[in-house]
């Protein structure tokens, strides 16, 4: 549950919020990632008004309220300040009117003052709330950026995920998080992975222990977050399993409702996993650029076969 208190603690400083009144309402819940500027609603038009949104009162609203009769102003304000209103923010450092302060105090609705302009507040708060409300999942795996592609290396414990990531880092690629990756869905189409604050840039390598990659290899080898572009599952080589030999078929797995390209990569002594991961990432980039090696080759092959067939038939007819 996301409370006004959490929002105030996290973003109060950066948004320049000052609490005017309604402190007891800080335990109110923010249930919608929406901010509302109550222009029309203040004029008395309440059709479609949603009360669970944070209200931002701008310069215009303040002026408008000032011009109204105090009793009318109170009625209009009372109509929009409902028990489910999480908070009210007055923009541009304007002084909230007495009526507004009294109603917020009585209704236990936190009332803030901010220096920013109303439009600016609207966009920034919407962005912050959307971020907070975006669906997320914690995955077991190691997230690395390889040639600009965010690759999540998955697999059983001790299959060599961390070792593969270390090899990639040594070749100049970047670590985002080892072992635990928090994935957030952004704007319905984008997956962003990051590591927990506490264990950020740390890795556990069997036989060595816990190492700090940022200290060992430098700041250039780490990143705080990265889009999740593909998932590679490392697996002990199994002779009974038939692994992909041509790459015509594209597999994907579902992460938070978005399908992400997926590769199953068998591991055995003599297979350079680091090189293979680099190749998968590069091939992914090539596909994004519109060139699909396996498909292009297959198309060419079909063309050659078709040409041969044509020649073959004409030869047979001639004979």
């Amino acid at each position, binding site marked *: 549950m996301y409370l006004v208190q959490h929002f105030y603690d996290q973003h109060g400083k950066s948004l320049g919020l000052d609490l005017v009144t309604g402190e007891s309402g800080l335990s109110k819940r923010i249930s919608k990632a929406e901010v509302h500027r109550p222009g029309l609603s203040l004029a008395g038009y309440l059709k479609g008004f949603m009360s669970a949104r944070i209200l931002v009162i701008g310069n215009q609203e303040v002026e408008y309220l000032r011009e109204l009769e105090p009793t009318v102003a109170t009625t209009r304000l009372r109509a929009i300040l409902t028990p489910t209103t999480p908070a009210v923010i007055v923009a541009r450092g304007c002084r909230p009117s007495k009526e507004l302060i009294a109603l917020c105090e009585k209704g236990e609705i936190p009332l803030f003052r901010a220096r920013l302009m109303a439009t600016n507040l609207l966009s920034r708060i919407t962005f912050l709330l959307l971020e907070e409300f975006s669906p997320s999942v*914690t995955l*077991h795996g190691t997230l690395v950026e390889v040639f600009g592609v965010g690759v999540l290396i998955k697999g059983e*414990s001790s299959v060599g995920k961390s070792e593969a990531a270390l090899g990639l880092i040594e070749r100049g690629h970047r670590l985002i998080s*080892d*072992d*635990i990756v928090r994935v957030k869905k952004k704007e319905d189409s984008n997956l962003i992975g990051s590591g*927990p604050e*506490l*264990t950020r840039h*740390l*890795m*556990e390598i069997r036989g060595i222990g*816990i190492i700090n990659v940022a200290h060992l290899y430098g700041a250039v080898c780490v990143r705080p977050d990265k889009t999740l572009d593909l998932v590679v599952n490392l697996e002990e080589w199994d002779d009974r399993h038939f692994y992909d030999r041509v790459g015509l078929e594209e597999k994907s797995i579902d992460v938070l409702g978005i399908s992400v390209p997926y590769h199953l990569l068998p591991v055995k002594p003599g297979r350079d996993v680091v090189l293979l991961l680099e190749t998968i990432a590069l091939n992914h980039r090539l596909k994004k650029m519109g060139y699909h090696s396996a498909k292009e080759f297959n198309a060419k092959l079909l063309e050659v076969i078709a040409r041969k067939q044509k020649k073959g038939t004409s030869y047979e007819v001639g004979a």
Partner: protein
Amino acid sequence: MKLVRKLKVKNRLGLHTRPAAAIVKLLQPFKSSVSFTCRSETINARSIMSILMLAAKKNTQLTVTIEGEDAAIAMEKLTAAFEAEFGEG
């Protein structure tokens, strides 16, 4: 077989590096999958980094889920280790 049990962190310093290593070592011979849930976060108990990420302090309740053929013995061993405060008593 799937077993779920609530275990409490009893040692003074909480789940720091040494107990985390002890848990991972204890679980190594078992085939079952083991996970800890703490404050809506579920992690793989075979990964030291994941256990450390929880930063569980003394008296934290962990929901331990063990699934697999040797779940019973694994749960027994794990409970004993938590009870013994990982030898840090």
